[in-house]
């Protein structure tokens, strides 16, 4: 179903207001950079914005969602709207070159052209530099929208040529309340709300058995870590690896583990209302007592490091074993 302007305005009031004004005043920038966490509605906003620009009977700044152009943007069939997605791990130079070739020609139907680059941070350096040339000398009537979840990975030369719009993440508690209204048990709702920012995705995730199982394994792993024996390594071997097979899943698993340490931190700081694993409050309080604040911070940074390594194609099994050893600082084996 198509998203309407009002719906997105609830989540992203500032961004939507800026875009609305720029259309009303006829001052659309030649390039935008939409920056914000996963699930903050960047893609939806960019498509809605494209519809507003191309719509045949626009009311004010809102598209009609019914004319040929609106419908074709929805189905991905508009010949003057181009969406570039990473081809595998990254956006290749060839993709940007094809885009440039496309834009050296006149529009198919109108003089207006628009391109959306998803995950713009995943451009190879070559691709980014090709695009740069393109952003420097914009053709009249051409609009670029770059989407990224990792603003700091973008080339500063690209950022400086775009109007940057920051998408605010939804407060997790709001999302969790919504999930609970949808009959999701509270302990899962809160966790899902932290993992993603998108309503539909959170709902889907918390209805998935896989997610509940993942939570169980993570908690088990932590319990094993706390005891000074080798059980943690067995859990990795027998449960973690078969369960978190995809890279994305492994990333999520590490997130879940990170939240345990985060909770312990909050308990030590006395901010109990921010704790995510509330149903295990008693255990968490015990664990928090047994650990120094410095250790928790160290362990959190070890997990974050492991998350970064995951992106550089490290073997997941080795990565997890290294993580366990680091978290225990080799204490169990001396």
């Amino acid at each position, binding site marked *: 179903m198509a998203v309407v302007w009002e719906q997105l305005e609830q989540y992203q009031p500032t961004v939507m207001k800026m875009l609305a004004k720029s259309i009303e005043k006829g001052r659309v920038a030649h390039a935008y950079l939409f920056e914000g966490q996963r699930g903050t509605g960047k893609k939806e906003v960019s498509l809605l914005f494209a519809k507003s620009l191309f719509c045949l009977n626009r009311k004010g700044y809102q598209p009609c969602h019914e004319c*040929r152009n609106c*419908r*074709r943007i929805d*189905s*991905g*069939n*508009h*010949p003057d709207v*181009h*969406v570039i997605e990473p081809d595998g791990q990254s956006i290749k130079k060839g993709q940007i*070159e094809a885009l*440039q*070739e496309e*834009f*050296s*020609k*006149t*529009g*198919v*139907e*109108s*003089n207006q052209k628009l391109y959306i680059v998803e995950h713009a941070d995943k451009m190879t350096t070559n691709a980014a530099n090709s695009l740069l040339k393109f952003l420097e000398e914009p*053709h009249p009537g051409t609009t670029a929208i770059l989407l990224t979840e990792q603003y700091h990975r973008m080339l500063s030369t690209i950022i400086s040529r775009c109007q940057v719009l920051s998408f605010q993440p939804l407060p997790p508690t709001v999302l969790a309340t919504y999930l609970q209204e949808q009959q999701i048990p509270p302990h899962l709702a809160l966790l899902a709300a932290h993992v993603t920012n998108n309503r539909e995705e959170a709902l889907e995730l918390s209805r998935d058995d896989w997610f509940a199982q993942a939570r169980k394994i993570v908690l088990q792993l932590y319990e094993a870590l706390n005891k000074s024996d080798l059980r943690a390594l067995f859990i990795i071997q027998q449960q973690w690896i078969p369960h978190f097979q995809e890279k994305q899943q492994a990333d999520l698993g590490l997130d879940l583990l990170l939240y345990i340490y985060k909770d312990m931190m909050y308990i030590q700081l006395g901010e109990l209302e921010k704790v995510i694993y509330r149903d295990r409050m008693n255990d968490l309080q015990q664990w928090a007592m047994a650990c120094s604040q410095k250790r928790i911070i160290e362990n959190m940074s070890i997990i974050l490091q492991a998350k970064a390594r995951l992106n550089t194609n490290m073997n997941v099994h080795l990565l997890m074993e290294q993580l366990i050893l680091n978290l225990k600082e080799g204490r169990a084996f001396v």
Partner: protein
Amino acid sequence: MKIVIERDALVQSVQDVMKAVSSRTTIPILTGIKIVATQQGVTLTGSDSDISIESFIPAEEEEKIIVDVVQPGSVVLQARFFSEIVKKLPQPTVEIEVQSQFLTFIRSGKAEFSLNGLDPEEYPRLPQIEEENVFKLPTDLLKNMIRQTVFAVSTSETRPILTGVNWRVENGELICTATDSHRLALRKAKIETESEQSYNVVIPGKSLNELSKILDDSNELVDIVITANQVLFKTKHLLFFSRLLDGNYPDTSRLIPTDSKTDVVVNTKEFLQVIDRASLLAREGRNNVVKLTTLQDGMIEISSISPEIGKVTEEIQSESIEGEELKISFSAKYMIDALKALDGTEIKISFTGAMRPFLLRPLHDDSMLQLILPVRTY
């Protein structure tokens, strides 16, 4: 939509429009062929967004009914399957019927296919033709003009505008120019037109190559319409649309020298063969360079040296040499391309010094010329 159509006419039309359909496209709807049925006949459209081909099958031709339109309408069908299906149908008539949700039945004899169609509203809209701004050219002349210019377009994407051929319409004349900044090809022709409108557009070289393949070798007139975004070539039942290149074409008129210091007239065919032989060795070298030297009594020496391989020299008798003596080097490939493009048994080559571009044109014909930049050698 429901039509009954002659299979052979349909197959021919589908084959024509298939030339524009590309298998690798980012826009899903363009994998299809659009079929529109009206009381006048059936129109098929294929496109890869750069070029679009429209083929029209009239309902009736020469007292013979080709299409029986039972119910007008339109649909988009997957090109790959549709073209294979119509080619292999058993009977000489085909019935095509579209039901709800664009489910399409294709029946011939006892065979029945059903294909899932797509919404024709999703298909890109081609520009409307305005009949008043039309100019006309005979098909064979148009093909020749394309052949004589399109080879000189640039293949590098660094300056996209040079990958196209510049078409200018002024004072009842069409001037086509192509250059890759090392050589230039220019061709002029008178056109038939009623409007005084002048145009200056750049048509992608690839599109012109495709167009050339589709046109047959008759001397029937082709209607040409230039709009803001597209150019349209219209033959009897075929419409060929191409997008244009965006941007300003460099001013090439000042590049062409008006005076000359040395004029050489040679027989085209002989000269071409001599250059071809000389380039046999040069081809292996770095940039395929041959050297031309004027000698006494109207003789010309063509030579080429590749130090690792060997060298070649050949003398050729020219028709006439006027002006200063000259030694000049140039790319054999560019010279061969240019000589092949020029018509006429004798050509005149006008040099203005060893470091300046030189001109080739047929002896008694002003409508075409080729310009080549020499290569600096020491």
